[in-house]
């Protein structure tokens, strides 16, 4: 892989993040997935492939550590392999570690999340798909498939990567055709794997994004209560009266879960297929009837997601070993608990402080990516990374249930690695 010095730097880079995160931070989602991994029964709210992978990892090591080592190692090694194409091994290792230790990246990699898993596999996959060896390219596609299975919007990041960076030994239209087939295969394969593994369907779109969109449309449309009540008939409305007034009073784009989870919210979770169908129907009807209200709501959400100045933007770093909403209870349920080391006790407040800073604001990574796309037009890998980051973020404009910095992890990664490739090529032309 590298000369001794580079290898040691990469190992130190991995170890550094593991020291910060050991044995791995767990949120509500992570605890749910750990429970599913242990039970061997998967729901589709979170990617079943990740829970199944965790189940496999738990054969060797229990708790979050195995997944933490996987995602961090894949990430740092992937970043190193990519950068080693244009930089000397030692420099590439140093830059890769510096990227991995960037607060918005390290803080997200420290948590066992689908986003972090996706970033790790995707980055190593990018490094492999451009390799001249057939085996490495195949491994790269498998890794990109694994990344695809981790998040519903991963197809947006794998598309430019496979189309541009995948390097079979043919050129021109044939290469593009093969790459397209490969992308369809890994995307379809990932979806099929998730579908096959899921033991129960939890309808995440209807139970989150769709209802939040309905609440947003109710807030921003000019529809009166009668029209809204008619459109929302059959949906799990808590109270069919004063819909617009309540939607206006409670609308909080930085935390739309309150529309579903709180007693005062417009909706409660759907309980049966009839309600789920009603949500789908109401969403279609209202989006078509009030497209401006829908787009305005999504724009408000996107502003929060990008943390543009003037928005709520906070709590982007997560530093708890069990579910922060119920630390003791989740420790008991998951039969897992951990205490911070003294180094972690120093780093955690720093991470939380940085989490509220501009370091974690995706908007300027998005701007930077768009600018660098221009300079990356002659470097397929860098262009693919940057384009993937922007595309992935664009999908969130319409699909993010609520703003969360981790959703933008790939944008951070793509900007940092893609940017480093662009700069390195300019400093040291091939």
């Amino acid at each position: 892989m590298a000369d001794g010095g580079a290898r040691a730097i990469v190992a130190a880079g991995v170890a550094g993040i593991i020291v910060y995160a050991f044995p791995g931070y767990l949120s509500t989602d992570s605890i749910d997935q750990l429970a599913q991994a242990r039970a061997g029964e998967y729901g589709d709210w979170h990617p079943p492939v990740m829970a199944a992978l965790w189940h496999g990892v738990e054969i060797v090591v229990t708790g979050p550590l195995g997944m933490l080592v996987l995602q961090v190692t894949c990430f740092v090694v992937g970043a190193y392999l990519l950068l080693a194409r244009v930089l000397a091994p030692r420099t590439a290792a140093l830059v890769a570690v510096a990227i991995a230790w960037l607060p918005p990246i390290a803080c997200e990699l420290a948590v066992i999340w689908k986003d972090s898993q996706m970033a790790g596999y995707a980055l190593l996959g990018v490094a492999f798909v451009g390799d001249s060896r057939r085996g490495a390219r195949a491994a790269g596609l498998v890794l990109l498939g694994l990344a695809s299975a981790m998040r519903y919007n991963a197809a947006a990041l794998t598309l430019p990567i496979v189309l541009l960076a995948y390097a079979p030994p043919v050129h021109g239209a044939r290469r593009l055709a093969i790459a397209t087939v490969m992308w369809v295969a890994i995307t379809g394969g990932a979806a099929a794997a998730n579908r096959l593994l899921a033991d129960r369907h939890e309808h995440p779109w209807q139970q989150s994004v769709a209802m939040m969109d309905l609440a947003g449309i109710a807030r921003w449309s000019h529809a009166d209560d009668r029209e809204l009540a008619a459109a929302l008939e059959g949906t799990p409305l808590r109270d069919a009266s004063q819909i617009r007034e309540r939607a206006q009073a409670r609308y909080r784009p930085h935390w739309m879960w309150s529309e579903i989870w709180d007693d005062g919210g417009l909706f409660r979770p759907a309980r049966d297929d009839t309600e789920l169908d009603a949500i789908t129907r109401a969403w279609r009807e209202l989006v078509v009837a009030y497209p401006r209200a829908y787009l305005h709501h999504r724009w408000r959400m996107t502003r929060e997601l990008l943390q543009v100045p003037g928005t709520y933007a906070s709590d982007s770093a997560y530093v708890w070993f069990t579910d922060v909403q119920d630390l003791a209870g989740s420790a008991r349920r998951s039969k897992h608990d951990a205490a911070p080391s003294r180094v972690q006790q120093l780093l955690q407040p720093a991470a939380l402080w940085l989490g509220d800073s501009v370091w974690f604001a995706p908007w300027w990574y998005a701007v930077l990516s768009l600018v660098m796309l221009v300079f990356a037009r002659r470097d397929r890998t860098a262009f693919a990374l940057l384009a993937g980051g922007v595309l992935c973020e664009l999908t969130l404009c319409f699909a993010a249930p609520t703003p969360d910095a981790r959703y933008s992890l790939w944008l951070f990664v793509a900007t940092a690695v893609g940017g480093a490739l662009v700069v390195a090529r300019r400093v040291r032309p091939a």
Partner: protein
Amino acid sequence: MMDLRERANRVRAWLAARTPRQLLLAGWVTCILLCYPGYLSFDSIEQLGQARSGHFTDAYAPVMTGVWSLCEWIFAGPFPMLALQTGLFVFGAYGVLKRALSPRAAAVVAVGVLAAPPVFAPMAVIWPDSLMAGALLAAAAALLDERRAMKAAGAVALVIAGGCRPEVAPATIPLAMLALPASLSGRLRRAGLAVALVVACSGVARLVGWILVDDDTYAWQQRLEWIDVVGTLRRAHADDPMPGLTVVDRARLLEGHDAYDAYVLTHGPKRVAEPIADDAQSEALSAAWHAAIADHFGAYATHRGELMLRQLGITHPWLPVFDDFGDPDHLMLLHHRATPSDLEIAWRAIVHVVALTPLFRPLLYVLLAIPAIVLARRRRELLALVASGVMYEIIQLPLASSVDYRFSHWLVATVWLVLVALAVARKPAWRAS
């Protein structure tokens, strides 16, 4: 397409291309995974509590608690100690064995011996005995090195070992002799220098322990002297007024005919006496101990002999394997909880099966130590190891404070290392060049 033989050859070639360091690392990580994040007994949990709070007592080896406290800077919980004690063991064993074996063979033997269930079982638990074994091997390897810095590191390892179990001091003399250059003549001179080094390291360990301890509970003294006093008096059927000590129930003092657990004698509703709490009581207990030995030496010798027979696994076989992550309620305040992986569950089953065999009886290793000493007589590093193991076992005769397999672990580990190394060295290609 490659056929199976070709594939197997490729795998073999790949394995052959691994360096000793890679083999050691892989073996070390595998051994850690077999018991990750490390087993915790009641004592280990209490010690972790002290390491974290910074309030040290002498109930648990304060030097070890200090090391644990330092480890907690980087990783919290038992994992860093597990990594430390197994790492010292495997890399220390490699450092010694590479003098007798080729580097690859030494690496494989070091990992193999650590994974051997009779050696592995105590190493998986965060105990002073496990850290001591690792520190002693690391000390031996470092003292064998010609570099001055390594010799200093060896002395530090001896301090840690002595801090874990103060009674190990005499058993470190053979290891200390490894530090002396071969050119140094005169057996007495060599022995004198080795003793001086051991005395210095033990003194430093004692001093560090004294500095670290906030509350003196006279733990070491109580563990040893209460069982000796009560065990001797019971065997001699003799009462003793024991001035200065609080005997709760004089009738119970002479009930039964042995005493092997100081905690039971001084705690709970069936206790015989109250634990000592100050210097005056400490002196009174020492006086009672001296008096019991002087007045009833035969009974004392029988008591210690019977304890040793139990320790060797001759008269009362016991369960020698401890593999628990600790009581969740006890650990709740320390925020540590773990569950075993499938790999660990399978490995536990294997260890438990092996524990049913004589391989977990220290007597076997006392017997095997004899041929080991004879066969290793020309290899000073191996001879030093097995001599140290035997001496530590002999020390148990007057100083063992209860019956526990882990007290014989150093003997077991050294006999395994030496015999396996000697067996491997029979093949010329695997010998050190």
